[in-house]
């Protein structure tokens, strides 16, 4: 089975302000984007166990112009608060890398 990271040109995470974390999955070509934009995988209910966040806290977007899938969740710990491990939120995307693509 092909993994998401084999088709994406960029998978990244980043703060969207101090209280939110956002993931971008981008594609160089339209075919890879079309293949990966799987509504049954990239929806709040399906992503909840993977990202360990309640379903109602997850937002998913598909951007045709950017050929990108975007997922936003609340940060587990606010940026810079006691217990935060990643001030810029830049190393939080590991759970997305190996999503199976049909």
């Amino acid at each position, binding site marked *: 089975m092909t993994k998401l990271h084999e088709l994406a040109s960029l998978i990244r995470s*980043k*703060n*969207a*302000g*101090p*209280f*939110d974390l*956002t993931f*971008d999955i*981008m594609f*160089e070509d339209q075919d890879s984007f079309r293949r990966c934009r799987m509504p049954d995988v990239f929806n709040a209910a399906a992503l909840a166990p*993977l*990202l*360990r966040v309640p379903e109602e*806290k997850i*937002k998913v*977007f598909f*951007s045709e*112009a*950017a*050929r*990108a899938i*975007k997922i*936003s969740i*609340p*940060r*587990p*710990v*606010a*940026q*810079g*608060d*006691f*217990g935060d*491990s*990643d*001030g*810029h939120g830049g*190393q*939080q995307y*590991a*759970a997305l890398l190996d999503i199976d693509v049909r």
Partner: protein
Amino acid sequence: MRQQVRILSATSVLGSGFSEDSLKCGIERDPLFIGCDGGSTDPGPHFLATNETAFSERTRYRDLRLLVMAAKSKRIPLLIGSCGTAGTNAQVDDMLRLLQRIAREEALSIKAATFYSEQDKEYLRNKLFNGRFTALNNAPSVDAATIDRSIRIVGMAGAEAFQKALESKPDVVIGGRASDSAIFAALPLQEGIPAGICWHAGKILECGAAAARRRKTPDCLFAALERDHFVVEPLDPDLACTPQSVASHALYENADPERLAEPGGVLNIADARYEPLSPRAVKVSGSAFEAASEYTVKLEGVERIGWHTVTFGSIRDPFIVAEIDDWTARLREAVDKRAASVIGAGVDWRLLVRIYGKDGTMGQLEPTPVVHSHEIALVFEILAPDRETATTLASMLRHQALHLPIAKWSGLITSVAFPYSPAHLHRGDLFRFNMKHVVTPDTPLEMFKFGTATF
């Protein structure tokens, strides 16, 4: 009213640098002004709390000097927002001091206009009391006590603050905390360019060359705005904007890629179109701005949560590594017990053990929280009300961790490698961001204070 407004964006943030060649190339294209963002919440709450800056004075001086000289040479204004990282009043004054130094060293006369973004607590308490204080999505809870215990609160200024500052025809606008996009939208809005074009171009410009494909290092970005579109292009000939690179920049650091909130409304780019004009330039059209019924100013506040002391150590013994979760739990129990006998109850302190090699980076989000390595790094963190209590806890922690027994070995063991003496490092006061709220002012300018200075 101009048919076209050309804008030079210096870089992603003042102090991060840009190439002198790119700046020169941008100046030759006759921009109406140079804009540069000066800050972000990205470096964390420390900078709003302490007035320190994320980029050192030398890096900011280098960038500011080149930008002031370039702007003066063309007699165009230089607009800087969120000066000094958090856009506090002291950080604005610090930037004024740098400007004064540049004026003296370069024998230039520089007229500066400032605006200050720090908020009065009494004003905010009244807004809260009158229901003009609104939580955004995922906001922590805020009451009057939150406002009282905040060290500092800044409001994010909109385009109006830059427009007001520009009334005195300054060479440089030194702005406190402001919307990044507002730095770039303020002047074209005054020139009659439609708001959707102004704010979308502002959003793309605020990070400099970050909207280019495969940016190597921070650099300038150029845009030309007209009534129904804008064209964006990097100035480094080795860089290129592509429709995808420009479209995807709207995703960066935003929770919602299509609706971007600004003080006066929402930039809606759901129907934006991106077309290549050349191998390096992209034409953007179709962006819309939905004016809000009420003007809102976003707040950023910060409070002290205690004294932070950390101890770094590592473990190589495979038998301790194999039972690290149990070891950590027993360590916690041992420290709790010692602390109860020394510090007593009623003192609020916390111990956190990060296990690098297991889940130190991602914590609860880690998909594979198991150790595959022959060694692990541990960071023990203590949060206590004051330095003395934190030092007491750190000394207990070091000693308890050092000799904590495991079943495999009989006799006294020394189980953690601490590279430093003392083993702990005092990080100092720890701060947290404590609000994600907007205030509804009576006018866009009432939350900001304005000034001028001539050097």
